[in-house]
């Protein structure tokens, strides 16, 4: 079964223009498993496992990995571009409008409100990391990483590298 690139472009464009934040992963399941039957449940689980090993946002990784299975490297680029292009263009237009009305208090306030939403969404993603199974050292690692990046402005590779070493050493122990 060879899925036309145009169909991938169209479906991902639709998700790019209508998908918001947390719901993306569910959209990809619906698209690939329920709607088109491109993948079965087992294959989708494998897509998830692959997506979580790569850097980048998990939901968009799932989408890109599905496209790779269907159409290889061209599929991956098509998927990525279709996911980010609609929102980017929309927000560039919004940004230009904002420049014109930047002294409107209502607009400035709305943007400050969006910053609150951004903060909340990031904190929400922290709560999905299985905190209930953590012990003291886990919390210490988290606190250390946060302070090293936020206050000490340490380079990210250093924080990730030392964090990985500590994490691996205690698994061994």
């Amino acid at each position: 079964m060879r899925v036309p690139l145009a169909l991938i472009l169209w479906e991902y464009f639709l998700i790019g223009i209508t998908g918001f934040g947390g719901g993306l992963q569910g959209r990809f399941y619906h698209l690939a498993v329920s709607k088109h039957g491109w993948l079965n449940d087992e294959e989708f689980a494998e897509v998830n496992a692959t997506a979580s090993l790569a850097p980048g946002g998990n939901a968009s990784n799932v989408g890109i990995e599905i496209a790779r299975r269907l159409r290889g490297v061209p599929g991956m680029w098509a998927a990525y571009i279709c996911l980010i292009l609609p929102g980017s263009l929309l927000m560039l237009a919004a940004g230009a409008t904002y420049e014109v009305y930047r002294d409107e208090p209502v607009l400035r306030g709305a943007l400050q409100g969006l910053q609150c939403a951004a903060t909340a969404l990031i904190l929400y993603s922290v709560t999905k990391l299985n905190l209930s199974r953590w012990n003291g050292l886990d919390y210490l690692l988290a606190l250390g990483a946060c302070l090293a990046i936020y206050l000490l402005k340490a380079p990210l590779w250093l924080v990730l590298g030392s964090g990985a070493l500590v994490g691996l050493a205690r698994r061994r122990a």
Partner: protein
Amino acid sequence: MSQEFTLFLDVFTAGALSFGGLAAVLSSLQNSLVGQHQLTSAEDFSRTYSLAVGAPGPNAIFLSLLGYRVAGPRGAALAALAWALPTLLMLYLVGRTGSAQAPDWMKATRKALVPVTAGLLAAGALSTARSFVMPTPQWLLSLTALLILLKRPKWNPFWVVAGCALVGALAIR
């Protein structure tokens, strides 16, 4: 070194280390793009991120918007490319052989990094909150939004985002 090259390099590095998604490298990106290389202001950085949160599609839209602020359409394309390259490369390598064939150290490291990721995400939340104009009320709004996300996981997060923007438009000056 030209601005565009610095932008590409900073975003590429962050992209290659973005285990846990964009929010996990947000604070580090701010350190390099704003603090170290002064390609944009801290205010612009968090405003652009909140625009991306209000946009449809994945958060990676943030990078094309930020690239546009730094160096116009070319900057947008460069930043989007720099962000995608490491992710697509890893997905290609892992996906082709299947995640079961991925080396054990890779999976072990990924697991060991979970607490560090949580700390990095917390730093990301502090970064978006850095430019609150009314810190106490805005933190209250953020925590209220977080509570809604936790208590009503079935609701589309879009409504939480829209609600925050509305409260901001009416009350934040």
